[in-house]
């Protein structure tokens, strides 16, 4: 093991690969998450391209029914659990300590473990394609279709095991982030001085901590139904498929806020900096975020209006669902208020943030439309829903993530992404996205159900389906342009400087990329926008002391070993007990090593 790492004298004995495998540095782990998330985004995107190609014309013949069903299921799972959540976690990892003025997260090794476990979950899920048995029951896997009677192959076992493992990873990282934000703040960084992005992270962490256990129980029960003869979700001995739906959506709805809140946080960072003025209504935005988090637990049955929920529950859940539009509206208006009166620098990051406002609003109001149960009777399981989810997920979550990528790329690499190509890419994504997903509103209105691999020509659905397919190819170009941009930029010298945007938050007070210990001197925070406060009050940056004695936790391979143990346990749950037993042994060994390993 390497010695304690200060600023000086890194011991470079290990190979680069080994360094990445054993790292406990939150920034490196953040990069791992980002790369992994983006790779899965491409996989999910390719699945989407196949789906759209099949649907381009009536009676398409590109895919058969079975493959189509696997693809849309895996598309959703990949995008939600393996692309957006990891990319969100990537920024969390990288920027929580930088934003709150800490040297690392509270539990660096746990952080590394989270990443390896997430990767294991992703590999388990995705490897199902290799066996030709990918899950095919839709991402919410409604029983009893997913029971072993109707889905006898292994697909749904990959689903249960993969999601439990990925969920474990999210639980661990969320616990870590929650503790970090509560406990590791720099002097003066009170909760009400936290950057909005940190607040959204905080809410997301709690959403996950409190909703993941519910889905874990549901997945366990499904696993038992499929493998141990129970009937939780099948009528066989008195079970009830509706229970699955409740448990899934008790998790599922908070989950959608897990996907959107990080992007809302990013937009709340980018807009003030680019408008060169403080965020409009900080307290309101924070409160709205918390309100969304709390309300988000009380609306789950809006996914179940058509199941025969009964009159009173329909009243209750439609009221609570619509009510969520109010705090969300507060956010939208406050972003507009932030732009108002500004001197907005039109960078690519700004483009994406403004795009976010427009597109997310479209998705949000279609959400409020189907919050009305009678209307949902016409929307549910139609393409109107598909339009809604992609406006909030692509127009919202992905747009926000791209905004963050352009905004923080210089901090992470010391290099500014090319603005011209960035903007061209933005227009491809913006136009492509609208061309793909807006027509789905029309299709929904014309009564096209979702999850159909084929449709007839005489239903008036062909034009808009064709347009939507054109749209996705434009999206592909946009994504390729972005990748090219990153690739070209990484080959150029690092010239961005520490603070290219004139940022307000602490990450801009350190070098780009930041040193392993983040800050030479942990800054004292006097205001919500600490750097602007210091600038306006002529408070100089603290001097770098002549002797730095900062002990950072040494790298450790135990997280990786424990991750492998958990992967083996998961693989064993899909194949044989022997592998699980091996996994338990490996994990137990790793836990001991972990506990006894010196951390100084």
């Amino acid at each position, binding site marked *: 093991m390497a010695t304690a790492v200060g600023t000086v004298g890194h011991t470079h004995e290990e190979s680069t690969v080994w360094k990445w495998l054993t790292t406990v540095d939150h920034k490196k782990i953040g990069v791992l998450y980002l790369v992994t998330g983006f790779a899965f985004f491409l996989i999910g995107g390719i699945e989407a391209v196949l789906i759209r190609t099949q649907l381009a014309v009536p009676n398409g013949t590109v895919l058969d029914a079975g493959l189509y069903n696997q693809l849309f299921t895996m598309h959703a799972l990949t995008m939600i659990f393996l692309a957006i959540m990891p990319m969100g976690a990537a920024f969390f990892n990288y920027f929580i300590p930088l934003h709150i003025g800490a040297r690392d997260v509270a*539990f660096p*090794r746990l952080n590394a473990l989270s990443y390896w476990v997430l990767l294991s979950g992703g590999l388990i899920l995705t490897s199902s394609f290799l066996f030709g048995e990918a899950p095919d029951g839709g991402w919410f896997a409604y029983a009893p279709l997913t029971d072993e009677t109707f889905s006898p192959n292994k697909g749904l076992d990959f689903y249960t095991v993969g999601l439990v493992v990925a969920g474990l990873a999210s639980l661990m990282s969320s616990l870590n982030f929650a503790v970090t934000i*509560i*406990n590791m703040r720099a002097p003066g960084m009170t909760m009400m001085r936290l950057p909005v992005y940190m607040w959204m992270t905080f809410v997301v962490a709690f959403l996950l901590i409190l909703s993941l256990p519910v889905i874990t*129980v549901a997945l366990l029960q499904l696993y038992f139904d499929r493998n141990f003869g129970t009937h939780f979700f099948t009528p066989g*001995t*008195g*079970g009830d498929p509706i229970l699955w739906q409740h448990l899934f959506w008790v998790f599922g709805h908070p989950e959608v806020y897990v996907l959107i809140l990080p992007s809302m946080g990013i937009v709340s960072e980018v807009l003030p900096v680019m408008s060169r003025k403080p965020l409009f209504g900080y307290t309101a935005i924070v409160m709205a975020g918390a309100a969304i988090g709390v309300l988000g637990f009380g609306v789950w049955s809006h996914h179940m209006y058509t199941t025969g929920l009964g009159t009173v529950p329909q009243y209750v859940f439609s009221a609570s669902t619509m009510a969520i539009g109010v705090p969300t509206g507060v956010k939208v208006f406050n972003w507009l208020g932030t732009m108002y009166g500004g001197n907005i620098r039109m960078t690519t990051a700004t483009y994406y943030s403004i795009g976010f406002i427009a597109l997310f609003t479209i998705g949000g109001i279609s959400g409020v439309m189907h919050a009305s149960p009678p209307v949902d009777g016409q929307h549910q399981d139609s393409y109107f829903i598909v339009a809604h989810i992609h406006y909030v997920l692509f127009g919202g979550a992905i747009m926000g993530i791209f905004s963050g990528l352009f905004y923080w790329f210089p901090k992470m690499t010391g290099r500014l992404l090319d603005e011209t190509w960035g903007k061209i890419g933005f227009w491809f994504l913006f136009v492509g996205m609208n061309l793909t997903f807006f027509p789905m509103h029309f299709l929904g209105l014309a009564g096209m159900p979702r999850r159909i691999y084929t449709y007839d020509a005489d239903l008036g659905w062909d034009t808009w389906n064709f347009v939507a397919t054109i749209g996705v190819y434009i999206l592909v170009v946009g994504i390729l342009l972005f990748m090219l941009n990153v690739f070209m930029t990484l080959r150029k010298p690092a010239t961005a400087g520490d603070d290219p945007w004139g940022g307000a938050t602490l990450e801009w007070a350190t070098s780009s990329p930041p040193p392993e210990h983040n800050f030479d001197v942990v800054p004292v925070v006097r205001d919500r926008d600490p750097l602007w406060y210091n600038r306006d009050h002529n408070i100089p940056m603290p001097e770098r002391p002549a002797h730095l004695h900062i002990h950072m936790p040494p790298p450790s391979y135990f997280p990786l070993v424990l991750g492998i143990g958990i992967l083996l346990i998961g693989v064993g749950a899909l194949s044989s007990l022997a592998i699980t037993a091996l996994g338990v042994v490996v994990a137990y060994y790793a836990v001991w090593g*972990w506990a*006894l390993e010196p951390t100084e």
Partner: protein
Amino acid sequence: MAAAHAETQHHTTTGIDNRKLLMWIFLASECLFFGSLISTYLIFRGDSIVGPLPADLLDIPLTSTSTFVLLMSSLTMVLAVFGAQHNRLGLMKGMLLATIVLGLVFLGFQVYEFRHFAHLGLNLGTNQFGASFYLLTGIHGTHVGVGVLYLASLLVASARRNGLGKEAALHVDIAGLYWHFVDIVWIVIFTLIYLIP
């Protein structure tokens, strides 16, 4: 776990130790976990189409005994924490051992109960009662088992030392939080499943 995590020793914003905070938030998460399992059990109350039903099987005197055992293990656990905090190494070790033993006795009762029920014809797949009962109490039992391992590791680790620092006390303290939580979950389970007819 056993040894010190120096990585998290430094001063914290709230003055609460990171690991303690982590444990408490984790326990909040566990509330939801057991909440969902208990919900399942309650929802399926009376939904079993074929027997055996709870009334045919549940043996209240027996389970009261094991409940008492678990309750006492909470007492010994708290005394172990007390010992650790007041630098009474012997008390701590003894009480940890007692807790472990009581935990094992509880598990023994549970194994006996499961085998007995299986003998009387209740399996996972028999009816809703079987499925939700075994899942809930089984997962609780797993928690007890993990707790036993956790405490045993602490005991082994403390055997190598003869003094106790604040750090070690904290480890026992945190393990205690976990142990007590598993105990209060049982309090709820015992009332809802066994006592309420």
